[in-house]
């Protein structure tokens, strides 16, 4: 089903969506666009290229409380925090980010060990994808084409959205999407012309140019395995690296977390908080030993995890080429360039 509205009526669309569940959509903030829970429909803003932090934070927030307890009381009195299963609409997700959910599902539910918090939100969510603007060039940091992702791929979305001039075309991709779209008022029917534009856009998206290098999952895995002991290669790659957490926090497919207890006035919370393999204490063991004390070891781990170990274990590269890690890296380290170098080696 294809429906349409106009960008001028975006807030009406948002209002309609808010009636269906919690709406999370891009909003403009001081530091750029971010996905935020919408309370004011007028704040939804589609004039963005992509958000600073990826939408993984919607299903896997940076801080997640598990258990609340009082210090000095028996364990039985601790109260677990129940997963949230409220209907949720995640609006305006770029195709590469939509793809990331598929990869993340492997970790949070796919292997059989189900993370109830992720799962509850994921199941309750409808994803409204949004094609990149094919009229403008890709940003220099992006390389999703390398990972086989088109600029207008509707796969993974429940509804996929394409902009046509001042019109917004919404097409249901899944049953869930169809149900949602059907139940919504205020939308106009789309013309055959619109239908065609939608299909053309999806097709054109596949050829849309981002940075590209031919990366075969098997090949890069092997290359990286061979390079593992090439310290020189990794030192060069990491000379500038600061070991901060920007790349991992911005990344849509990084999922590492730490579990910590925070107490105040004897009221304790056990919560998970994003962690980053680039942090020096990420691998610090209780004994005081740290297997990865060098910067190059940590950067090597990150690249390998995404392009080698992940492939060996799950068969897919754990990167969607969104370019966030490069864009926000304080010292301009570029994962694409490193992968490119590795392919050449």
């Amino acid at each position: 089903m294809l429906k349409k509205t106009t960008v001028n009526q975006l807030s009406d669309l948002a209002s309609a969506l808010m009636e269906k569940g919690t709406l999370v959509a891009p909003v403009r903030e001081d530091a750029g666009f971010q996905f935020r829970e919408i309370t004011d429909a007028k704040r939804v803003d589609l004039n963005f290229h992509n958000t600073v932090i990826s939408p993984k934070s919607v299903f896997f927030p940076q801080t997640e409380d598990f258990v609340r307890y009082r210090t000095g009381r028996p364990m039985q009195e601790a109260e677990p925090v129940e997963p949230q299963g409220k209907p949720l609409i995640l609006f305006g997700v770029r195709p590469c980010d939509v793809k990331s959910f598929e990869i993340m599902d492997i970790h949070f539910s796919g292997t059989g060990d189900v993370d109830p918090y992720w799962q509850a939100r994921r199941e309750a969510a409808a994803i409204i994808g949004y094609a990149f603007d094919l009229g403008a060039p890709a940003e220099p940091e992006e390389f999703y084409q390398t990972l086989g992702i088109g600029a207008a791929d509707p796969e993974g979305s429940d509804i996929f959205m394409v902009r046509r001039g001042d019109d917004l075309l919404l097409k249901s991709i899944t049953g869930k999407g169809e149900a949602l779209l059907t139940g919504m008022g205020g939308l106009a029917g789309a013309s055959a012309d619109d239908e065609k534009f939608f299909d053309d856009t999806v097709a054109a998206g596949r050829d849309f140019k981002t940075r590209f290098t031919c990366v075969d999952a098997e090949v890069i895995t092997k290359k990286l395995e061979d390079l593992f002991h090439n310290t020189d290669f990794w030192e060069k790659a990491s000379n500038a690296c600061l070991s901060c957490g920007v790349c991992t926090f911005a990344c849509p497919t990084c999922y590492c977390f730490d579990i910590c207890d925070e107490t105040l006035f004897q009221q304790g919370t056990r919560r998970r908080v994003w962690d980053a393999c680039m942090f020096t204490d990420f691998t610090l063991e209780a004994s005081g030993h740290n297997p990865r004390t060098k910067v190059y070891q940590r950067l090597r781990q990150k690249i390998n995890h995404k392009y080698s170990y992940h492939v060996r274990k799950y068969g897919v590269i754990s990167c969607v080429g969104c370019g966030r890690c490069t864009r926000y890296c304080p010292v301009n380290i570029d994962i694409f360039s490193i992968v490119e170098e590795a392919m050449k080696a």
Partner: protein
Amino acid sequence: MSRIGVFVCHCGLNIAKTVRVSELAQFASTLPDVVVAKDYKFMCSTPGQEMIANDIREHRLDRVIVTACSPLMHEQTFRKVLAASGLNQYLLTIVNIREQVSWVTHDLDEGTAKAKALLNGAVSRSRLLMPLTSRVIDVNPDVMVLGGGIAGIQAALELANTGRKVYLVEKNSTIGGHMAQFDKTFPTLDCSACILTPKMDSVLQHKNIQLMTSCEVSEVKGFVGNFDITIRQKARYVDHNKCNACLACTEKCPGKSVSEWDEGLVKRKAIYIPFPQAVPQKPVIDREACTFFKKGKCRLCEKVCEQKAIDFGEQDTFSTVKVGAVIVATGYDLMDTRDLIQYGYGKYPGVYNALEVERLFNSAGPTSGKVTLRDGSEPKAIAILHCIGSRDKNSHEHCSRVCCMYSLKFAHLFKEKTSADVYQFYIDIRAAGKGYEEFYNRIIEEDVKFIRGKVARVAKSVDEPDRLIVEAEDTITGKFIKLPVDMVVLSPAMIPRSNAKDVARLFNLSTDKQGFFMERHPKLAPLSTMSEGVFIAGVCQSPKDIPDTVAQANGAAAEALTIVVKDKLELEATTVMVNPASCCACQNCVRVCPYGAPFFNEPKGVSEINEALCKGCGLCASVCPSSAIIARHFTNEQVLAEMEGLMEF
């Protein structure tokens, strides 16, 4: 998980009056990890201590909190209880609900609420306490006594008699101090010199005492049990090893200066011994007064000295002594009353200060013991003015304590030696001491006139220009008195030595508001100081008379002995340590430590601590940006936990 016992003391009604103690104990029992909470009338009493000891065993306590008076009061007492019960003494926490709660409020609700907050803080912190072990160090068996007045002499002799080596350091060229200037001592009126000089002599003769006159301490390093003290021997220009004390030099010397011993009433030579019974009985040259030093010519003393003991080229020398304990007995100065213009001291020749009068009475003094005015005449009326600069916000707030009694003594001696009328102008007569009130009564009966009123002004008499007028209100009659006298005796305040601050800095002593050295506790540790191993005796602590000074000296000697009698000494364990894994090698600790305890281990790239030098202030811990320095017993997490506990309620 800890097992904490909380023991709330009533301190009779001291605490129980403004803190609901049983409610506090009840509250404690609701706090995490508290397994037993009790209140009791006197926790420091034997049954109180036994109760704690029993509960430690019975409830297998691993932390004890005593909620009572200040830790400065009874921390040691309760630490011993823990130690005796097999629990590390540093697992004790004291909550101060007496000095800082019950005594500073009248409100039962407020007091109880604050006590709860403090207790909660203590429970939070207590859980994080770690057992600590004390360091054991070797103890140097020798002692240094600083100051050769009666206090220093007495302490040195006491210690030397126990077989300890004593270094007696005196800044003047003789020992004896102020007591050597006195004529008679109250209330017994025995001769000061007669009781002091034998002691001075014993010092000189004692094989265990190394007498160091004309010496000053220039640097103090180390710590209790192991002080390294650098002493400056000031040049005397006379080789005391060669000098045989024939004193031919002093006869020939043309240089003159005022005699300090005689309070400037007469002159002495440039090469001199301060007084006939000086110890050591060897002359020194006063550089300021010496003709050779001033004009480059003379050397008469050198010519007459058969021993060739004169050495004009002598320089100050420095030596280091190692001792285990120190007694500071540096005495006092008399306030300079020139600033109190209303009394005319320094302006009118008839106005004297107390020490000058002591010299006038003394048969070895400038007048050979005759009481005469500066013009040689005998005074017909004498006014003795009490509290000059003492008990006075405008100069010194403290009571100098001995003035009443020596003023009475003066009155007696004036009566004995002259036919003058003697008046005492006083605010209160303070005669608390053995035989003192009796002495006061005796003086009243000697027909000394007592006028209760502080003198407002001493002026020149208009009618009789040679006489003085003393003006005051007789507060008993309410009449204004103008009294013509020939002599006015001021009883000035006894004040800390002018260099007391320097001594305090050298030995790390605190000083009180007046500048006297502060004792660790006014009642329970009156001779100890905040510096471990440094004791104080005599007037440097506060004004007192000779019997009290001697008693303190004996006490300080005993205190010093308790340290040096042992071969080994346990020190407080609350020093700092470095967690090398966290050290970021910024070396801030090395930069700030006043004691040089932290040092940088270059090969390892981390700071380390020389714990023998550490005094546990924790400065390094707070300047350590990566929290690598752990200040034992005051760790970051302990302080934070306590804060959190305090702020919860």
